[in-house]
């Protein structure tokens, strides 16, 4: 199952996109309660969105973004746009999801 949940809605030529990404977003500063060892940093660094193949927004995240990050943004678009959201984390994992604007 995809790590990305995405919703988009068009109104007066502006599409509002809301997305939830499942990710631990470890800062690298927390200690494991049992072993006392630092939990390695593991967080999304880049999120990218395209509509019909054109760049909409590029997002750079640091470890200060919450666990299971939520994201919302707006762009000039239409119903039926093919919208893609993709992410890459600091360990090289990645995922993407494509949807249609309602």
């Amino acid at each position: 199952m995809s790590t990305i949940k995405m919703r988009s809605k068009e109104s007066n030529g502006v599409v509002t996109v809301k997305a939830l990404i499942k990710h631990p977003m470890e800062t690298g500063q927390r200690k494991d309660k049992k072993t006392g060892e630092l939990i390695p940093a593991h967080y999304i660094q880049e999120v990218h969105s395209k509509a019909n193949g054109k760049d909409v927004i590029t997002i750079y995240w640091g470890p200060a973004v919450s666990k299971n990050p939520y994201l919302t943004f707006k762009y000039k678009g239409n119903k039926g746009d093919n919208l893609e959201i993709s992410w890459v984390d600091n360990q090289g994992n990645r995922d993407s999801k494509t949807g249609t604007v309602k």
Partner: protein
Amino acid sequence: MNRRNFIKNSMLFAGSLVAAPSLIVSNKAYAAWPKKSFDIKDLTESVSSVYGHSNLEESSKVKLKAPEIAENGAIVPINVSTTLDNVDSIMIFVENNPQPLSSGYKLTALSEPSIGTRLKMGKTSNVMAAVKSGDKVYTSTQEVKVTIGGCGG
């Protein structure tokens, strides 16, 4: 933040790999991520590293929506929008976090200058939204009181 700064930062990052091998992570392919700016621990330095200067102008055209009191510092909802034209990027800085730069949003001609996310905050701090329009950087700052920190563990 402009592309030139990103390239400059990413080159500095490549250089720092040699100096600090313990920091090596497998993100060479995403060199655009401005590691240097995200690592800085001081707000003013962080701002200069992002913009190349620290000339900020407070503006009522930058709308920052954040709670006055955040009961849970692990999830602090932040929304930034602006009525300014030609917005290049939106950045959110949290002054008292270990690294003030929390996130950056690079807009395109297609995007509307309105973004929202949720941040972690270790303790009560000023949150600053910075909007780059043309050559200028406009800001709006609000204090968020945190009752339970988001960086415990």
